[in-house]
């Protein structure tokens, strides 16, 4: 059996808290752990923040479409994030080289994508027309 959740977000950071509540409810219905909920919310937060901050070159309102599917059989959750922003493939971002550096040498920022890659099992990127489509999967036992 598969359960679905679709969230239509506007390009406004305040939308992240609203989406996190919806994800939390969905995960609880599917009996996923608090840690799973936390990492999923973090993933969404980091990726959508990037899209909102850097994805759009105008000041217009844009829609970011989130589709979440949980497969009971596979015990696997899939999250797809779709936006009409500029081309951005997070897979091209290499691991930051400052993780082990002392504080003076640590730049401010640049950790979001690194956290996402650590917390999900699989990331797939596709540019379809003028849209970025990012598909992430995560097993419940991870």
């Amino acid at each position, binding site marked *: 059996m598969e359960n679905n959740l679709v969230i239509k977000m506007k390009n406004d950071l305040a939308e992240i808290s609203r989406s996190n509540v919806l994800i939390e409810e969905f995960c609880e219905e599917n009996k996923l752990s608090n840690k799973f909920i936390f990492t999923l919310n973090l993933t969404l937060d980091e990726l959508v923040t990037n899209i909102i901050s850097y994805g759009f070159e105008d000041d217009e309102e844009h829609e970011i479409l989130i589709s979440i599917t949980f497969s009971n059989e596979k015990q696997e959750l899939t999250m797809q994030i779709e936006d009409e922003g500029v081309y951005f493939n997070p897979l091209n971002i290499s691991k930051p080289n400052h993780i082990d*550096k002392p504080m003076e040498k640590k730049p401010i920022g640049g950790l979001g994508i690194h956290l996402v890659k650590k917390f999900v099992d699989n990331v797939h990127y596709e540019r379809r027309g003028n849209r970025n489509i990012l598909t992430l999967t995560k097993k419940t036992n991870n």
Partner: protein
Amino acid sequence: MEIKQEKKGNVLILNIIGRLDSNTASQMENELMPLIDKGDDNILVDFSNLDYISSAGLRTLLLAAKKMDKKDKKIILCSMKEFIHEVFEISGFTSIFTIAENEDEAMKEFE
């Protein structure tokens, strides 16, 4: 997100309540930076009521730590939930912050 302040000796204790996401991290930055600029205390950030942190929250803490370092003051964190601690580990932040088990242990670090 809400920050409660309490002063014990020369330590300013900041209890962060709620979530530190991209949206609320800038709010924390706006509250925290003037406190550091004006104040002359060491700072203890109590994480016991913090439910969530993203890289935006880490960014604000790193900014604060750099500022405190320049003033030759200490900033210590305490009572961190397990999954928040994991975010700190993955980000390499466990090596730049002193993270104490609880408030009592943290206060000893300031002595």
